[in-house]
């Protein structure tokens, strides 16, 4: 069955790049421009994985993730994982990975594959 991934990033270039990469690898990809848009999209679709940027305008990410239950989330960010931890972002149990930006394409593909195939 084709898996669905929701990309949430305020930068269109990042969204588009990741979308092309993951679509090429056979995933169904949806995009959202920020946290609020992400929550709105979740009313319509139920993705298998959300790739979520930590720093976005609008509702802070820590409030957004509290409203997401039962869907795996992988963070993407230019800040380090240690800083994200310090902000208490990585505690929730459906947060499964942290992709350090700028990431390598092959790394992104491998990690998404690993998350969705387990």
């Amino acid at each position: 069955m084709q898996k669905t991934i929701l990309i949430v990033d305020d930068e269109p270039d990042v969204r588009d790049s990741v979308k092309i990469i993951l679509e090429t690898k056979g995933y169904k990809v949806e995009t959202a421009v920020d946290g609020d848009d992400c929550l709105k999209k979740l009313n319509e679709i139920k993705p298998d994985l959300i790739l979520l940027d930590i720093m976005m305008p609008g509702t802070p990410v820590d409030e957004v993730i509290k409203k997401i239950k039962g869907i795996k989330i992988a963070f993407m960010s230019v800040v380090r994982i240690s800083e994200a931890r310090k902000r208490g972002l990585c505690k929730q149990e459906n947060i499964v990975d942290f992709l350090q930006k700028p990431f390598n394409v092959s790394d992104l593909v491998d990690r998404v594959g690993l998350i969705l195939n387990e």
Partner: protein
Amino acid sequence: MQKEFNKKNLFFSKINRKLTLLFVIVGFVAPALAVYYFYTVAVSSFTEYIFVEQISLFNIIAIIIIILISINAGIIGFFVSQSISKPIKQLYNATLELEKGNYDFRVDIKTNDEIEELAHAFNLTSEALAKMEQERIEIDNAKTEFLSITSHELRSPMTPMKAQLQMLQEGYFGKLSKKQKESLSVIIRNAERLDNIIADFLEISRIEAARLKFDFRETDIKQLVKDTIAFMQGFAKEKNVTLVDKVKNLPLINADPDRISQVLRNLINNAIKFSDENNKIEVSAELKNDFILFGVKDYGRGISPDNQVRVFEPFYQVESSTRRKHGGTGLGLTICRGIVESQKGKIWVESQPGRGCKFNFTVPLTPVIDIEPIKILFSQKDVIERKIHEEFKAVLGPLGEVEFNELKNKNALSKDDLIKYIDSLNGLYILVPEKSEDFKNKIREIFGEEKEILAEKKNDMLYDNIEEVMLK
């Protein structure tokens, strides 16, 4: 330095003593003169009526008057001078406070004279200094903040850029010709390099703002070094350089393995750059009293004494051509220094040109949890020179000032030059051997060497010599 408190100083400061003595002398001379004139006038006018008894009575009265007046004058002098010296003492203490950096200190002197004006001027000055200090802190914070924000902002566009480039390279948009591939790999390599520089900037802004994260856990140093060497083996192979593990058995310590590994990787990377083909690099770690001493030793071309201090400065390259030849951001050693010093460790280099160099750093057994900001963007050279200057003045007095300037003019302020200079003082019997040894250790300490290792230095040197003889 503040002089020790004692009673003599409390009651009779130098001004006190001088003025009181002056009053006593005046109090003695003035009535003496007065009595003398009175006496001569009296004797010349009433010669026939004065009896011998009266003369001696006159003498006694005159002496008593003189003594009483001079005592009174002395007491008055004491209080008068006290009123002058007390506010001066207050001002003196206030300047000491300023020296310590306590710019909020104010003097409260109400003497209604020039000293009060002086005190007022002093208060204005310290106010101005406090303002400048405040501005300095603000500028410093702004600089760190700017560096941090800029680095983040620079890093954001790197994400889609790198992704798209790699997509091109990996054939997401169709096959590429050989020329296209070559061109693309140049772009990717330089994008990578740019990203590394930005990442290093970020790291420096973290060090300067004390935001560097350490994750302390029980660490097996021996294993850590082994893993790091294994990781670096790939880079070493390019030059056919052998990495030698010389780590002795060590207890488990509480430390951040990632940070130690980061420093080691940087130093090994550096050592590989400066090694010639087929050289070896030795990595060591041993337990000293309350820290672990790491060492990365290469047998490359070495670093001249002049450059030894400056290698930890940002973007400092031993030769301007090396950066282009070896790549690298020019910030690696600066970051190493930041990481090591954040943990209150030391990092320094020993080298003899042509015979390779050894980078040392220490990691304390008890981790430092409260990280303090470290100024790593400053040139260390100025700081070191200032410290040497102070040390010269402390050990040699006024002579030190002259000698320091002379050495500075001769550009002979490197560690080796100074050690040689101190030895020459010892040879001229200007310093006793014990004192010159202390002086040398102070100098080495200023250059960043760990204190406790200095004690063992002698034995090491002996050992080095034996090794040399054996090699021959």
